[in-house]
């Protein structure tokens, strides 16, 4: 193949899935000229699995992406067919939005955004090789011989790396949804010295909606109240489509039992590690065989298609079994499968080979994001994508990189977990992975991250000014409630308290303290202590949460503060752990492998105990003092 010089860029992004799109846009928006290369332009922002975005923890990531100036939130806000707020009965920390996407629309909208973006070039091509000189990545070479040069490269290949689809006894080389897999790039990464692992994931069959008898299922409508992921969205889609709930039954389970020997999961054909939290239906039936039924959600894939995603029926059983399987389910007796479910195995890199910026330790100026780093989920991919894009862009422009901490964002938790602890299975974000869950709320993503987004140039001036005004309004209202004293002589107040079943006031009370009572809400309080001009719903919510949970929030903040000193203690990259005699052997090995950048990160490595951390601290201080003494 004759090669040719095809162009020079600051940043090249390989792949245009959910990680790639955010990476490309972020890089372009920080001011780096960016090239995005994808195997198939018709697959931009494709959803090979659920046609949905968000959910617990993940939905908060989407908000964080928006606060940083990313695209996922805006894109889904324009293309959803249904929107729901989950966990409304629980505390503010675990509320999360989830949207059902119009799958095709989502892709078109994202593709258009990429095409319109200044500084961004989107092309079709298959990257087979990286240009690496002296351990530094300097560009890519495609299958067609095009050489693109750049200062930094981001790889976001999803499940394409040596992808293999498995359906029953059938196994063939393929990317998701029968796309061309990327084989040479995977081999090339191995040659460069990357350690790869084999992971597996799967998807259920899609059926034709006209063959579903919805009368046998339960309707699952969207929320009536308008909701949006993006802080900038003002237009809401009111015409929503419902999802439908049905169940498997004993017939389903018997059929699976009878055909288990044909399941690649149990015949040993699948070697990759699948996620525990997202089991196939055959896994569920085998592992929880006392459960009489499992939930199946029927999710429309869009407004202009009849395809329906059968959530809960992820399977790699043979196609003939899938037909029978689907038809055991109430409402699906006559359902026609349009695409069969399948399992897919793919290569991922061991994520402990990454720095917190998502730059690889193996090759400089090379970044990876998304499923290639061992995660699963569009939101996890997008969250890494935006960070990799920002850092690849900032690096190319010679600017300081950006790392989010565990107390700032779920994105910080996600990346720190990956690079510090690694993962044995496709990694999914769960709210329990965050130790500061109460700080990382859905409602305050903008308060946490807009400042950062603005600083790196992803948040424009207009939005930033609006944000500052919002912040000020929240503080002003909190202050007003703190300084407003409600007296026992105020009949309205007493009546309100009586009405909600509280004990009446005996002494004067600050409005803010009254709000802390369990049965009190801002809306109620407002009726007896209203501000001059009423606040937006969003502001009311914010004020209420900040005041009501102040005690708990403060506790979390204190924890963060305690850890901050450890976060601030930096470990030099060239530290020689072998020279520190006191360290335990296991700790030494782990530290050499992970190469943590701060004492706090070191303390999160399993196998590194507090005595090791103490010793490390003394050693670092020793070095610092010695340096000062020498100078």
């Amino acid at each position: 193949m004759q090669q040719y010089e095809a162009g020079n860029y600051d940043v090249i992004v390989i792949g245009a899935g959910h990680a790639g799109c955010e990476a490309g846009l972020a890089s372009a928006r920080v001011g780096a000229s960016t090239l995005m290369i994808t195997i198939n332009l018709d697959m931009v922002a494709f959803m090979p699995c659920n046609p949905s975005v968000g959910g617990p923890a993940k939905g908060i990531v989407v908000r964080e992406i928006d606060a940083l100036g990313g695209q996922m939130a805006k894109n889904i806000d324009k293309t959803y067919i249904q929107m729901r707020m989950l966990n409304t009965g629980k505390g503010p920390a675990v509320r999360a939005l989830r949207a059902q996407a119009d799958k095709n629309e989502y892709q078109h909208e994202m593709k258009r955004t990429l095409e319109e973006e200044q500084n961004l070039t989107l092309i079709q091509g298959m990257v087979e090789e990286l240009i690496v000189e002296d351990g530094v990545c300097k560009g890519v070479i495609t299958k067609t011989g095009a050489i693109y040069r750049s200062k930094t490269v981001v790889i976001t290949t999803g499940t394409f790396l040596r992808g293999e689809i498995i359906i029953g006894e059938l196994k063939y080389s393929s990317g998701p949804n029968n796309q061309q897999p990327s084989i040479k790039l995977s081999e090339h990464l191995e040659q460069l010295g990357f350690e790869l692992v084999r992971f597996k994931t799967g998807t259920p069959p899609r059926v034709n909606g006209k063959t579903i008898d919805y009368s046998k299922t339960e309707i699952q409508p969207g929320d009536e109240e308008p909701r949006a992921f993006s802080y900038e969205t003002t237009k809401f889609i009111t015409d929503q489509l419902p999802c439908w709930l049905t169940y498997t039954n004993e017939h389903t389970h018997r059929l699976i039992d009878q055909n288990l020997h044909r399941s690649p999961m149990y015949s040993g054909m699948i070697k990759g590690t699948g996620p525990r939290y997202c089991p196939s239906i055959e896994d569920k039936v085998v592992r929880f065989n006392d459960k009489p039924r499992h939930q199946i959600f029927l999710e429309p894939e869009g407004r202009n298609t009849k395809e329906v995603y059968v959530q809960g029926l992820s399977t790699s059983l043979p196609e003939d079994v899938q037909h029978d399987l689907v038809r055991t389910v109430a409402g699906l007796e006559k359902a026609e499968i349009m695409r069969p479910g399948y399992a897919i195995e793919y290569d991922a890199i061991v994520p402990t080979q990454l720095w917190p910026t998502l730059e690889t330790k193996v090759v400089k100026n090379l970044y990876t994001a998304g499923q290639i780093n061992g995660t699963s989920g569009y939101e996890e991919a997008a969250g890494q994508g935006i960070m990799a894009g920002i850092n690849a862009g900032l690096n190319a422009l010679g600017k300081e990189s950006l790392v989010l901490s565990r107390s700032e964002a779920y994105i910080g938790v996600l990346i720190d977990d990956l690079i510090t602890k690694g993962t044995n299975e496709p990694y999914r974000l769960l709210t329990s992975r965050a130790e500061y869950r109460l700080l990382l709320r859905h409602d305050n993503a903008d308060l946490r991250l807009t400042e950062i987004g603005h600083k790196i140039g992803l948040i424009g001036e207009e939005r930033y000014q609006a944000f500052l005004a919002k912040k000020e309004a929240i503080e002003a209202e909190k202050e007003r409630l703190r300084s407003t004293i409600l007296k026992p002589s105020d009949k309205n107040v007493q009546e309100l308290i009586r009405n909600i079943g509280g004990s009446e006031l005996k002494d004067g009370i600050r409005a803010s303290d009254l709000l802390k009572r369990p049965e009190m809400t801002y809306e109620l309080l407002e009726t007896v202590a209203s501000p001059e001009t009423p606040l937006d719903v969003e502001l009311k919510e914010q004020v209420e949460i900040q005041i009501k949970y102040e005690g708990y929030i403060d506790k979390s903040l204190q924890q963060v503060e305690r850890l901050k000193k450890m976060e601030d203690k930096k470990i030099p990259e060239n530290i020689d752990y072998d020279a520190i005699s006191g360290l335990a052997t296991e700790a030494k090995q782990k530290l050499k492998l992970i190469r943590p950048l701060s004492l706090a990160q070191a303390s999160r490595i399993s196998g590194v105990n507090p005595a090791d951390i103490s010793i490390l601290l003394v050693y670092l201080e020793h070095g610092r003092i010695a340096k000062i003494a020498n100078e």
Partner: protein
Amino acid sequence: MDTIAAISTPMGEGAIAIVRLSGEEAIPITDKLFSGVSGKTLAEQGSHRIHYGHLHDPKSGQVVEEVMVSVMKGPKTFTKEDVVEINCHGGLVSVNRVLQLVLNNGARLAEPGEFTKRAFLNGRIDLSQAEAVMDLIRAKTDRAMNVALGQMEGRLSRLIRRLRQEILEVLAQIEVNIDYPEYDDVEEMTHTLLMPKVNYVKSEIQELLQTSQQGKILREGLSTVIVGRPNVGKSSLLNSLVQENKAIVTDIPGTTRDVIEEYVNVRGVPLRLLDTAGIRETEDIVERIGVERSRQVLKEADLILLVLNYSDKLTKEDENLFEAVKGMDTIVIVNKTDLPQQIDLEKVKQLAKDHKIVTTSLLEDQGVNELEEAISSLFFTGSVEAKDASYVSNSRHIALLNQSLQAIEDAISGVEMGTPIDIVQIDLTRVWELLGEIIGDSVQDSLINQLFSQFCLGK
């Protein structure tokens, strides 16, 4: 940095023991507990001065100790931080009560070598000592680990593991509700469902605090019974122990004056002499309440001092006593060696089996040292290091159990207030983590190391 605390004098027989605090909160914490004769707070007073007064437990309002408190404001201190040294009566009981008090009021138990480490980090110690500091941390940690490993086997860790498992199941249920809100697999955790669970956890923690045997000993002393036939010298033994060892605790909640006098410290081992009033009056507990009932009394004791008469033959009653103390921590005292021997010592040895035998003449003050030695070695089996570490691990357990209790109480009040479950869960998770720290289990697989590294030798 946190404020750290530890006992900075050797454990055991010293007349005075010192609890040292270092850190920003050292003075405020002590001020919460201390009331001096001058009536001023320590913060208001000059540095490098010593103050006389009493420590109170802010929870109960009761006086815990009579103390001398030295206040040294940084940077002219060992660690360059604010340092407070609380001088209290020697012996395990008082010094531990003081340590527990400061730990319950905001200080954290120091890690091995941590005072020295801070001194170094704050630039107090010469550069050349850095290596030594690292070695010190490693050595102390490893030594503490060995002792703790031995200790952690057993009932306490089993109970904690079980309790943690139960908590974990509740946590998991809450988590599933949050992360998979639409799945009907798991019952939704409600306040009504959670209430009995958190109350159960609280009662288990309280139980752990109470039954933690060493904890009980440190709080209350070894309950000790002196038994023997009439006229073998039980009163003399009691008087001798009381005279030799000044009573150290002047104020134990819920005890009578009589018992206070019988609370003695033998080489750092706190003894609570039971029913000694009875001994004084009737001279014979066995005779007075009958063999069956005396067995009952004996069963509740931690330590039995069985007294025999050197100048008399063994009787059936003596043999009955041996039978009654079978399997219990017992020291056999053959008293009255000042008189001619009548007793068959070989027979005594047979009857005593593994129990330690000490011969004394309490009248002539002979053998009392040996007796004290026997008591102390019974309590502190092993080396002096083991003694320190076992005391420390115990202090640590109690501090962590107290913190767990606080956290579960927070969780309970959250449930009572109707706070969202996922927020109550923050406190419940904290309980789980704290209990995990006691047995060295935590989220991370290797956290067992953490337990051991947190032992403090305070120097």
